[in-house]
């Protein structure tokens, strides 16, 4: 009897072609990186348990989980607001998977594993805001959507979760996007069309930074 391989396949595996897409200038205006292999758990507070959950979360992550549209970076996870009474825990290496988080929040929250439900895309580059203005209705002005800001919003009538990560060392902004896995390829093509005029440098990373 054979053992089976259960190799993980990204929903973008087919669509993602590394290299430069669209206009070729001195520097591509957009840097598009898919990040593969991560754990993503949705934590939803139970009725009347908001305060207790907040306490438990702070104990567990060492930082308060956001209760407004923000993303906070703990030492080993990113906590992203995803709606009232709920946040996403993004981490790697099974640090915060269902089996580790469930006992910690027992009775306080309902947990749902979303690790395979989303693709994670990081977008940066000199033209990042110009391009995102074609996809998102949000105001991404640096003073309005600051580092750590998050939003539950839509692209192409499809829900996405967006947050602004820490700036790159050159000071440029980085936007992170969680999109539903079954829509990922379609949204990827939409993104490529939106960014083609600026040139897009396409990459992927096997691991969450």
């Amino acid at each position, binding site marked *: 009897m054979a053992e089976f391989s259960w190799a993980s396949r990204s929903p973008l595996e087919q669509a993602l072609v590394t290299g430069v897409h669209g206009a070729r200038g001195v520097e591509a205006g957009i840097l598009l990186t898919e990040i593969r292999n991560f754990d993503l758990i949705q934590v939803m*507070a*139970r*009725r*009347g*348990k*908001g*305060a207790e*959950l907040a306490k438990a979360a702070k104990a567990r992550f060492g930082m308060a989980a956001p209760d407004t*549209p923000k993303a906070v970076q703990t030492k080993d996870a990113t906590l992203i607001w*995803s*709606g*009232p*009474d709920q946040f996403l825990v993004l981490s790697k290496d099974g640090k915060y998977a269902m089996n580790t988080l469930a006992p910690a929040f027992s009775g306080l929250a309902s947990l749902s594993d979303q690790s395979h439900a989303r693709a994670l895309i990081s977008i940066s580059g000199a033209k990042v805001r110009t391009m995102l203005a074609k996809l998102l*209705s949000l105001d991404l002005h640096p003073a309005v959507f600051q580092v750590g800001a998050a*939003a*539950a*919003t*839509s692209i192409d*009538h499809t*829900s996405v979760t967006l947050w602004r990560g820490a700036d790159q060392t050159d000071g440029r902004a980085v936007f992170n996007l969680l999109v539903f896995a079954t829509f990922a390829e379609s949204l990827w093509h939409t993104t490529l069309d939106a960014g083609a005029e600026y040139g897009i440098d396409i990459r992927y990373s096997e691991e969450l930074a």
Partner: protein
Amino acid sequence: MRIVCPFCGERELGEFTYLGDAKPQRPAADASEDAVYDYVYLRDNIAGVMSEHWYHGGGCRSWLKITRNTLTHEISTVEPAAGAGAAKVGA
């Protein structure tokens, strides 16, 4: 139209879907067929300020109660439905 979601902030109309008048209340389990008929079918259909249910499906998935003028589309208040943000109940 722009709607200020109490959770997400000001958002574009396209993120929301509309249900209708928020005034009719679902009758209790022992209510008469007439009462339920009234709830399901009859509407004041106000030309002016009315209270409405909207869903922020393209955002945080909260149901909202919005006061809006049907003559001008002006929105005066937006508040979460009773069960949106219920983790804070009693807190």
